[in-house]
């Protein structure tokens, strides 16, 4: 279900908060779906909307210059908490394709890669600098270049980032990870054979 990612230049949204958890990204009551689609409506629901369902004008996503932004720049430990992949689905359904932060919850980071949402880790100081610039000139754009592993700020500053070679390849080519793993089927079966002899109690039926 991965959506290819190569390069993107888009309006960036500064969300200057740390520890943004997946309950904040998409509250649990929106998880009662058996589909992956339509979750953008619930994105940051408690921050975007008031009790009556009206937009909160002060919230950054609701401010005019940031509408249609596709890149989110935010604080440390983004996506901590629950493993819900719905957090990634809701960001992507809203239109976000890149999240830049000093650090991510490990499960969120992995969920992003599996779907084609690029998580970019940059040093905290650089992220703070980017957020400052985006707040100073609302609506300015950032570009993300996966092949080059760089992000370019509104002022032209280029920041390099790390990403594993396997997820990078999967993202660039939109590869089906399960199909790739099937190429190791023989090794998996051989492994099971060895384990069945060494630790047979693990192969009792549940």
């Amino acid at each position: 279900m991965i959506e290819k990612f190569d390069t993107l230049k888009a309006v960036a949204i500064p969300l200057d908060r740390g520890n943004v958890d997946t309950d904040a990204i998409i509250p649990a009551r929106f998880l009662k779906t058996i589909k992956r689609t339509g979750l953008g409506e619930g994105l940051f629901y408690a921050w975007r909307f008031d009790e009556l369902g009206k937009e909160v004008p002060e919230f950054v996503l609701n401010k005019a210059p940031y509408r249609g932004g596709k890149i989110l720049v935010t604080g440390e430990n983004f996506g901590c908490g629950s493993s819900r992949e719905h957090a990634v689905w809701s960001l992507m359904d809203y239109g976000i394709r890149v999240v830049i932060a000093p650090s991510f919850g490990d499960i969120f980071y992995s969920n992003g890669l599996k779907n084609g949402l690029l998580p970019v880790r940059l040093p905290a100081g650089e992220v703070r600098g980017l957020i400052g610039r985006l707040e100073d000139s609302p609506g300015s754009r950032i570009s993300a270049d996966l092949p080059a592993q760089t992000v370019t700020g509104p002022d032209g500053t280029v920041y390099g980032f790390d990403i594993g070679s396997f997820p990078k390849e999967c993202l660039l080519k939109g590869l089906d990870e399960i199909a790739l793993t099937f190429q190791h089927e023989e090794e998996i079966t051989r492994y099971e054979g060895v384990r069945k002899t060494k630790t047979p109690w693990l192969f009792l039926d549940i």
Partner: protein
Amino acid sequence: MASIIRKIWDRHVVTERPDGLCLLYIDRHLVHEVTSPQAFEALRKAGRNVRRPLSLLAVPDHNVPTSPDRLERIEDPDSRIQIETLRENAKEAGITLFDMDDIRQGIVHVTGPENGLILPGVTVVCGDSHTSTLGAFGAVAFGIGTSEVEHVLATQTLWQTRPREMRITATGALGVGVCAKDLILAIIAKIGAGGGTGYAIEYAGEAVRGLSMEARMTICNMTIEAGGRFGMVAPDETTFAYLKGRPAAPGPGQWNTAVADWKTLFSDNDGSFDREESIDAARIVPQVTWGTSPEDSLPVTGVVPDPAGHPDPRVRERMERAMRYMDLRPGMRLTDIPVDKVFIGSCTNARIEDLRLAAKVAAGRKVAAGVTAMVVPGSGLVKQQAEAEGLDRIFLDAGFQWRLPGCSMCLGMNPDRLKPGERCASTSNRNFEGRQGPGGRTHLMSPMMAVAAAVAGRISDVRGVL
């Protein structure tokens, strides 16, 4: 020479790429109704099969109502569809299902272990971050997203990078009225909500050795609240005694061989950990969270902190935000905070030992007027055991509700939830904004502390009533 983390990890590597990415074999896979439907659907669309159905257990827990009439009707159509979908997927793939009318039904992280499914040295995953709970058995246990659920269904493996390794040593022994929940809250306060990111954590030291399996599960459960990838406790006689005779544990013919193998699972003392932390368990007093992150934990004897005193403006801003959301003032004594609701339950604290500890405090006391308090056993078996011991009577006599097993008020997905502005003393694991219902306010604490709060009608130091 290696840590237990590395020993178990290495056993499960099917193949390793030059860049260090490992194809890890998964022994056990637990699924629930919320994070699995899209995985099964994608599998079906691709024409793929579940590779090893008998390595799986399916349990509905997140959405299920905890009211007695739940078998007759589930009001919410979306919840009903998710539960029915789980049922259909399990049936189609030949997966064991503990359905709502099964005595073994309960929170996936409670029912898995009590049926002997989680053994030392296994790898276990579930589309739920609190899978870390199961590391208490000396297992590599971690939460995954739905795409990874699909990958495990199809291949029985996952591509994973090796974790960094951290050991947290808890010295001394916990005092009276202080339990595993207080220890883990104190640890999270110390290392921070992101302090464990990228790490697998081994909990060690005499304070951990002295804990029951239930208490070790409470500790490992909240590893994710410190950002850790998984947590674990090396198996020992406590582990073996817990497992012996459980339905899915090795039988008499294999038991001795299994135990001999499990006894090799410990960390060699070669200083191989990337990071070491320690904490003096004897100095920990009962903990309560004041804010909206599990790291906002303080001794119950403390006061709400003053953001103005913090040197970092970003931290100051976060604290002010949390204070507004929680409707608290700096300097307020924690024991002056009134509560509307009390929730005893969740994968953190709904096992039999938790209920025994809570019942000890509740015995002969009454829930304060105006407070709604509920006890939600972690599984049908926990409920049955508690009732055999008369714990249900103690809770009911004290004015608590005694409900059916499920995730209940931990996460605001089923009918048990807070109303906007309501304040809850909760034994669950997350005090995030809106976690227990939109606008709800959560104070995390131990089961004993939650009973003390129910009785006093405000946050209270349980040591004063023991």
